[in-house]
Structures are given as C-alpha cells and as structure tokens.
C-alpha cells in the first residue's frame, strides 16, 4: 500500500512500477468503473426501449415490430426489397472476432511478444473500422427502406441505441489507434501496459453491448 500511495507522483520509475505487485493498476480500476457508468448509461436506454416496446399498440393490438417494418430487421435475409445486400450478420461476426484478436494482443504483450501484440491490435483496429463502415452502409440501406429516426418509436429507439453503440465503437477505435501507435513506438512491456489492459476491457464491453443489442433488436 505504501507504494500505491506514492506511485502516481513519485518521480522514480522504480516506485511507479512497484504498484503492479499490489493488485490491479489504477488505470485498469478506473476503466472498470468507467465501464460501470457506461453500463448504466445503456441500461437507461434499454429501459426506455423495453418500456416503449411493452406499451406499443398498433391498430388496437400489441405488436413489435410495427407492421411497416415487420421484416426490416430480419438479420437472416440476404437482400432487401431494394436489392441491397443485408450485411448486419457479417458485421456482428466481425465485431465478435475483433474481441478475440484484441485479447490475443493483450496476451502477447503480457508475454513481452511485441510483434504479436502490434499485429493483433492492428487487426482489431481494422475489424473495428470495418464494423463502423458496415454500420454506416446498413444505415443507408435502412434509410432507403424508409426507416429513420422519426419512424415512430421503432425508428427512434433503433437509431438511438445503435447510434450510441456506434459512437462507443468509434471511441474504442480511437483508443486502439493510440495503443497501436504507442505499441509501435515500443512504449509497452509485460510489466507496463495498463493502457492496453484498459483499452481491451473497453473493447470487450463495446462488443458485449453489441451482442445484447443484436439479440434484442434483431432476434427477440
């Protein structure tokens, strides 16, 4: 504990390093707490979604999705009525894979394997960006089918939930980019890589949120 108390301000690197022996590092704990707050943020949006969905009445009967968009969010159809390719399933698979590559990167840096670390983080970043591009494409497809933010509560909840998730993916991608840049500059080691751990936690969180969103919006 002594070392902890002085770790952040002590100028000697030896002391700063020492706190790794006393449990998780401050940045990792900070990230876990930040993720807790993010969970509550999404919990608020999910609560709104479920309330609205449970109370939705159309033509006198409860149904969800509304008639107009009965098949719009079917993940398994290949093309839409306008002939666009439906790529939401591939996008989901890509994001899930990126969680694995991210974790492989973390394991690599824990072994001091710099090449494996940089390679895996680069792949993760690439997959994340691909997901964002696919999501942008998917929004375009939905717009063409007439589904917008103003399409009743169905459109509002869909675009708010996926939009905020997309913004979080974007934030995670920025963090990955910084990790990649610093990793290529050789700033991380098996002993000193709190930022890598924190970023990977965040990336996993973003991935889990998408799995939840996908299950609720597309499957349930």
């Amino acid at each position, binding site marked *: *504990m*002594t070392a*902890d*108390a*002085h770790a*952040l*301000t002590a100028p000697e690197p030896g002391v700063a390093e020492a*706190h790794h022996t006393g*449990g998780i590092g*401050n940045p990792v*704990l*900070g990230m876990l*707490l*930040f993720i*807790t*707050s*993010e*969970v*509550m*943020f*999404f*919990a*608020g*949006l999910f*609560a*709104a979604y479920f*309330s*609205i969905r449970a*109370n*939705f*009445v159309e033509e006198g009967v409860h149904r969800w999705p509304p008639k107009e968009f009965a098949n719009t969010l079917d993940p398994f159809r290949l093309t839409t009525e306008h002939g666009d390719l439906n790529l939401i399933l591939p996008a989901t698979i890509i994001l899930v894979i990126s969680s694995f590559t991210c974790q492989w990167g973390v394991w690599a840096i824990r072994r001091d394997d710099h090449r494996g670390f940089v390679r895996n983080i680069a792949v993760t970043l690439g997959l994340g960006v691909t997901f964002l591009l696919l999501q942008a494409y998917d929004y375009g497809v939905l717009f063409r089918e007439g589904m*917008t*933010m*103003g399409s*009743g*509560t*169905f*459109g*509002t*909840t869909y675009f*708010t939930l996926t939009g*905020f998730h997309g913004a979080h993916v974007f934030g995670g991608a920025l963090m990955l980019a910084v990790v990649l840049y610093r990793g290529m500059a050789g700033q991380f080691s098996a002993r000193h890589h709190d930022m890598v751990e924190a970023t990977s936690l965040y990336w996993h969180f973003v991935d889990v949120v998408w799995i939840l969103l996908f299950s609720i919006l597309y499957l349930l």
Partner: protein
Amino acid sequence: MATTTLDPAAPAYRSGLYEWLTTTDHKKIGIMYLVNSILFFLAGGILALVVRVELAQPGLQFMDEAFYNQAFTMHASFMLFLFIIPILAGFGNYVVPLQIGAPDMAFPRINALSLWLLPLGGALMASGFLVSGGAAAAGWTEYPPLSGAKYSGTGTDLWIMGLTLIGTSSILGAINFLVTIFKMRAPGMTLFRMPILVWTVLVTSVLVLMATPVLTSALIMLFIDRNYGGNFFDPNKGGLAVLYQNVFWFYSHPAVYIMILPAMGIISEILPVFSRKPLFGYKAFVFATAGIGALGFSVWAHHMFTTGQVFLPFFSLMTFLIAVPTGVKMFNWIATLFRGQLTFSTPLLYALGFLSLFLIGGLNGAFSAAVPVDFAIHDTYFVVAHIHYVLFGGSVFGVFAGIYYWFPKMTGRMLNETLGKIQFVLMFIGFNLTFFPMHQLGLAGMPRRIADYASTAGWSELNLAATVGGFVIALAMLPFFWNVLVSLRSGKRAGDDPWEANTLEWATSSPPPAYNFDHLPEVRSERPVFDARHGRTAAH
C-alpha cells in the same frame, strides 16, 4: 509530529493565475470547486429572491409568468447541479486525499477536467437567458412534453447540454474518488479506519457512478426528441410521457443522497472534534450510509405517486424504510454529543443547525411516503418546504460547517468567530422564516410553480413572511463574505491543528505543502492525530 510549518503566504498559494488555471493539485482544484460553487450559489440565490419578491403579494408586480418560470427553473438548476453537488465534491477533493494520507487524487489531470467542465456547463445553462425565448422554463425536472420542442425553446437545449457536461464531470469525479480511496490510502488506513467523510464520499461516488449516467441517457433521449425528430416521449407517436419521469427520477432520487451524504460526513467529522469524543457507533454509521445508498435506488417513484402509473405500495414501503438508517445516524450524532465537552465554535453551531433542521426535513418527508397524504400535498408548497429543510437546512448548513472548519486548513488563517456567529443566527432565523410557513401554505392548498395567487386565497401573510425570510438569508451572506475577505488577509494564524482534531489533514501544515505530507503519523484507529496527540496506541 514533524511537519513543515509553511507560512500562509508560501509561494504555492501566491503563484500566478496561470498556475491556478493549469494546476492538477487536488487542493487548488478543491478550492476552485468551492469558489465556482459559491458563485453559482449567489446566482441561484438572486433568482430565489426574484421568485420570492414576485410571490410576496398577490398579483403580478415585477415580471410575467414566462420570466417567473425561467427564474425558478434556473434557481433550482443552479442550486442543485452547480452548487450543492459540486461544492460537496469540492470538499471531497480537498479533504479526502489529505484524510487518507494520499499525495493527490489518483488521476490529477482528469480531476482538473472534472473541475473545468463545471463552469463550462454552468455557462451553457445560464446562456439560455440570452437567447430568444429565454432560459429553460419547464422546472428543473424538465418533464416532457412541456420540455419538448413544441412547447419549449432553445434555452432547454442549452440546459440539456450544460447538464450533460455537469453530469460527465460528476461521473469522472466519482471514478477518481473511488480509485483514490481504494488504491491510495496510507499504511495502516484500513477501510474501517477511514474517516466517515471518506466513507460518505465513497458511497456518494458509487451513487454518482450508477445514477448519473442514467440522467445522461434521459437527457439524450430528450435532446433527440427535441432536435432529431425522435419520439421517445411523444404520446402521439407511440412514446411515453411518464417514461422520462421514471428515468429522470432513477437518477434524481439517488441524487438527493448525493447532495446530503457528504454533508452528513462533514457533520460526522465536526461533532466528535468539538465534543472531544469519538464518533458514537462508527460502524453503524458506515452501514447506515451504505444502507441509504442501496435503498436510494428503490424509492425513485415516490416523486410520481400522482401519475397513477407506478406501483404505489412498494415505493411507499421503501420510502418509509429509508427513514430508518437516517434515524440511526441522527441518534448516533446525539450520542456523540452526549457526555462530551462541547465547545461552541462556529463549525459546531452549523453542525447543530444541521441536526435540528435536517430532523424536520426527515419528518416532513414521512408525510409524502404515506401515499394518500402525498395525493394531498404533492406539488404544493409542502414539498417545497420539505426539499429545502433537507437541502438547505441539511446540506447548506453542512456546507457552511465545512467552510468554517476547513478554512484554516485551506488558507492558514482562522475565520472570525463573531462574524461567523452573526451569520449563523441570521441564517437560522431567515431560513425558518422562509421555509417553515411553506408547510402551512402547502396544507392550505397553494401549488408550487405559480407566479400569482388570488388575494382571497388566504396565502398572502405567509408568503410575505417567506419573502422577508428570504431577504434575511441574503443579509446573512454579507457577514460571511466580509469574514472571508478580511480573514484571508488578516485572520488569526491557524497553525497545523487549531481545533485539536482527529484526522490526518491536521497532521500537516496549514495550508499543506504540495503532495501534502512530509511525514505521516502512524494510523492505528480512525483518529490518528488524536492518538498522536495523546500518545495513544489503537483504541480498538
């Protein structure tokens, strides 16, 4: 105690403006939190007087309803989000690292970010007064559909953006407090040796971490409805008007505990020092604080009993139950005073003011927990009385107790006792004169948030009394500001430990040096400085 006795005029506190603006030192950040909050306290206070002046007699004398609605909306928004919550965070910032023997907060730069988001958010909110249509005017709760695009102007968007920034500041601050408390305690400072203030900041931080993001989500949904054609709260498009209230109060009820728990912590620091006894029932206190935090998440719908859309018995039961841990605290405070040796310095006076007024704020809350009685008094002046007995009689008296208690530590100089007592007496009288009659007004049927009332309603005398009381409170601020200005220059030198206190902040110089401690006393109980003074080892 080998501490460096720094002169109050030591360079750290005479450094230039640039140093203050760019600092990451938790003490300077804490002081800037306090200053920023006091400025918004003044702004909110002026708006309160504006409201009181209009209500002093029947008829519209000074403003139209449009401005009146902005005045009370912004009064509450300033007081809650820019005064009470941040000033308590400011005390936490200044005191918590010192009390646990840490050199600074865990993330000093994020700490600075938390601070600077506040004036930014506040300015955004306040800028509503400059746009056409005026500031937000749908009450500090901003219920849709009234706060929707159809019924409210740009001021509401500015309010949402400002509050989102303030909320973000709170969340970052909470993360910072939690990591600091969990990871940076001095050797020997086990969890159950932490001062109660640290405990209350810990529980408050958990509440902020879990509740404030939900406010953010409510605000964002409202913003989307207002600006991007969303339909969350629009009943004509399948949205639910009351949904906002559920999400909002899921935050805002725990927020009441965010606004009172650290003040309870301050009181729990002061009572033992000025009665020369340890806090009675330390562990009971910790558990009561945690209990309030936990129950705080299950009572939000008691603000919505009259919506006809909540499960009444559950929320009624929970609301009654939350009185129990609060009562436990009250009895422990009194037991701390019992058989002590009380010295009536200004901090103790404010602490006693807190006890006697917060008691009323607790008891008149029980009326609203009884649902059928709530049907009668909800949205009347009775609940206005209740909230002010809790947040003014409680939190604000706690805040002033804290200011008088820690001012010597922050500046190295004592505040003047006579001026402090004059302020206390004026504030105590003014407070009761303002807010006690509101009970009767509410029982007589006066709804809140109205600019005018009929002269035949029988509410005129009590409203006049309340307005006079408001000006007495305003008057009480004059000796306070005079006291601060004079004492900063020529107050009595404080020394390290002017109050013969218990906790670690008094083991260093006043003001403390950068990184706080040259040497830490051994921590073997929750009163390390007391132990050192009396040459004691652990008491338990």
